[in-house]
């Protein structure tokens, strides 16, 4: 048998690695037998040393012996490790660790989704003030002062020390996002495609379907030839994207001073037989175009307003609008 030092080197490397990677006592014992057992690889070398020439024996002998000692020591050490940890195998069925995670408000989720859908349909996203003048909230929208049409919106008024008679300064908490239509048309030219998500206010007693503040998303599209049929396309596209395929629509007449014709849109979810009112809309009224100095003979378009709280309630099956403003984390953490 011809033994070279590099053979020992190989055995060392291989055996040490195996011992290190051994994952059980049984496996370790197997390794011991493979190297140090009666017919073990290293043992065979040691036994055959007597047959090699003396010079070679002097060279290989101490190295081989040393290797046996080291390997025995290593195996023993690993053995102890297994013994110490015996019975303490990791129980993988224990619960995972809790991850601290913050949650966004459901109305944020809904608003983002609505914005994304409208942006994909080429609408810009526009902001507007929550505190409005009487002019923008009502008059410019074809709701004249002292007109009972104003009673359609129960309004919060801000107290002023000086009683201003001019409606430009008298402040109201906007009762809808529609004033931003007027503001936007005052500063932009046709064509217009925009939506306005934002907080709105109503002076009314709260109950499971009424809140003193809530969210709307206003939409406005104006151009040379924007039609009611276009409105139907856009709003069906939106509602189908939002509620998923299979939602049914119903369009019926309504009245808003700032649109003509005005309509109401109801939806019916798959597997439901209930029509749910989701938004009001219509073709922009001539008087609104007049107020922003657009020529109603040259442009036409549609506007709509959708209640985001309402969308969220339908989408997540929430029965009480007040939960949105409760700050209750048991509610928020579900979204």
């Amino acid at each position, binding site marked *: 048998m011809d033994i070279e030092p590099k053979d020992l080197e190989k055995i060392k490397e291989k055996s040490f690695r195996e011992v290190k990677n051994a994952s059980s006592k049984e496996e370790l014992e197997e390794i011991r037998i493979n190297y140090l057992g009666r017919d073990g690889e290293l043992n065979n070398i040691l036994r055959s040393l007597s047959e090699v020439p003396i010079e070679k024996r002097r060279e290989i002998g101490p190295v081989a012996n040393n290797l046996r000692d080291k390997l025995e020591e290593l195996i023993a050490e690993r053995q102890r490790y297994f013994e110490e940890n015996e019975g303490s195998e990791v129980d993988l069925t224990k619960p995972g660790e809790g991850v601290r995670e*913050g949650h*966004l408000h459901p109305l*944020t989720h809904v608003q983002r989704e609505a914005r994304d859908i409208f942006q994909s349909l080429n609408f810009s996203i526009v902001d507007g003030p929550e505190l409005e003048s009487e002019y923008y909230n009502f008059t410019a929208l074809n709701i004249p002062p002292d007109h009972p049409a104003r009673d359609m919106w129960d309004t919060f008024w801000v107290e002023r020390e000086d009683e201003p008679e001019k409606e430009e300064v008298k402040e109201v908490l906007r009762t809808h996002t529609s004033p931003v239509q007027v503001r936007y048309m005052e500063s932009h030219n046709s064509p217009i495609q925009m939506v306005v998500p934002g907080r709105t206010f109503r002076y009314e007693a709260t109950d499971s379907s009424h809140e003193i503040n809530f969210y709307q998303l206003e939409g406005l599209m104006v151009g040379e030839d924007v039609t009611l049929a276009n409105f139907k396309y856009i709003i069906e596209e939106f509602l189908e994207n939002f509620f998923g395929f299979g939602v049914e629509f119903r*369009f019926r007449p309504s009245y808003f001073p700032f649109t003509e014709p005005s309509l109401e849109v109801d939806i019916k979810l798959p597997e439901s037989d209930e029509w749910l009112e989701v938004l009001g809309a219509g073709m922009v*009224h001539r008087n609104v175009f007049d107020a922003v100095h657009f020529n109603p003979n040259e442009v036409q378009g549609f506007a709509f307003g959708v209640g985001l709280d309402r969308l969220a309630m339908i989408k997540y099956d929430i029965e009480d609008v007040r939960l949105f403003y409760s700050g209750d*984390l048991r509610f928020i953490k579900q979204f």
Partner: protein
Amino acid sequence: MKFSYSLLKKYFDNLEPAEEVVESLLMYSFEAELQNENVIDIDIPSNRYSDSVSHVGIGKEISAVLNKEMRDYPKLVGSFETSFENNCPVKVDIQEDELVSRYIVGCFEGVEIEESSKEIKEVLGECGIQPVNNVVDVMNYVMLEVGQPLHAFDLDKIEGEEIIIRRAKKDESIKTIDGEVYNLSSSDIVIADKKGPLAIAGIKGGARAEVNEETERIVVESANFDRVSIYRTSRNLGLVTDASKRFSHDIHLELALAGFDRVRDFLEGDFSFDYLGGHDSNPQEFSKKLLSFDIDSFNSFMGTSISRERAINYLERLGFEEKDKKIEVPILRKDIEKEEDLAEEVIRMMGFEEVGSKPPKVSLSKTTTDEIFLFGDEIRDLLSRFGYNEVYTHSFIGQAGSGKVKLSNPISSDRTHLRDSLLPLLLEKIEDNFRFFEKVRLFEVGKVFEKKDKKIEEWNSLGVAIGTKREEGFFELKGIVAQLLERLGLIDFSLPPSESFEGLEVKSDDQKVGKVVRWNEEIALAELNLEKLMTLVDEEISFEPLPKYPASSRDLSIVLPSEVRIGEVIQSIEVSPVENIENVDLIDEYFEDNMQSITLRIVFRSSEKTLSSEEIDEKMKKVKSILEEEYGVDIR
């Protein structure tokens, strides 16, 4: 507004069941709902009172949408039999023409007061009106039929047999038939006699000339008052009645005559009272409006392609008539003034279902998103990543204070003002959530309001709050605020202690942009002005090459008087001339006898080479001597 199905049914041969009527109204006319088998609740749009706020008016809508003829019903317009030949004992004095646009009165004698017929009482009941006696009830019944409010006075209780229509005098008051007393102002219109007010015009009758069992002669009033006056008075007095609603909505003058004629018919015919004659202050013939209607403009507005014949047919069903290519508008349709108004009638009669949905043709233009949405999104995402939960609170708070915006009609005593900060309500929400959670982390992005030099400003604010039971929350929140600002790209900011509250100011570019408040040992609150922040942040992230050489750290323990601020100690190391200091962190502290012992970990790194331990020892020596000099302490 409630309508009686049984009354509507009388106007037709075999009217469809109430459910079907409601469904048709809903799809082609008005928001309608069946309340019970005989009561339909209809939401009359504010521009349709003139023609539709009556059973006859609704009958006409039903007739149009179901394409079904009306049989027998009281007329609303046209020529009436009533004559005003004068044997009427009562004189009328209208003091200002603009108060009343038409005033009809008629006198009756031989009055016998009794209970109304079952039929009338049922209809009143279905419409939510309490029956009183035959005279009062028939006034209300006719109002329900034709839409004209009517009022009967006991003629013998009118002093001087003269009715005066005038503005209320200062300090005048009236006791109404329900026993309430209202103080009037000079903007209110009253019906009066020599003695004083008999009724608040167009709103409610007074108790003094009330019709009751003793009544033998009556004066019936059928009038039309100044819309704005009635609306204002009704609002000012907080008194909304069936009459005030109708007058506020500008019903047609013609209805005054139709109403009076119908009532006279009842009183003379059914009740056998004697009609003595009356007055009509403003008899007139009404001419009908003529409008053009172009089917091509209609189709290009709606995106439809219907024929003119079809459109005209819909209009005719609603009582419009085509005359020489023009459309003649029914007298009561005050809402129809322009071609677009006709278009609305056509499209709703056709049904919106029939309009196809067509994608708009637009030229490509870049959409934009207002910056506040993007900034708000970024903040929400960061804070939720940090483990904070988003809440929405109300925009109203209760505490008064300077600069807070007060509402003139608050909804409740704890919501009298607009919030000038998000923190009061976040604090409340932390405490609410303590019932269910040991640790509460919240934030809100929302508008706040403040009055500055008489002008009200509103801006977007961010509120962040932490509540940790039996644990200090402040330092987590301070870390969150710093981390947030860094992630937003605000490089240059500082958090100096405040002099007015326990907490820190957040400053950048010499501006106060917010604060971090240590509310108590468990709760901390922070608020940042987002509009200011938005102008300060630099969104660009620039990459710095990864370090080539290793860092080494050394710990340094110092005993300092407890009044020395740790933040200042760290800062004095960071800004010292000693080079290659990468970071200084507090890793341990404890207090003993007015002294604090702190351990700082200083991390050194050079971008040019691996620092040897001798070099670092040298730098540490410098740091120590700087601290010794600055704070007069010995360092171990």
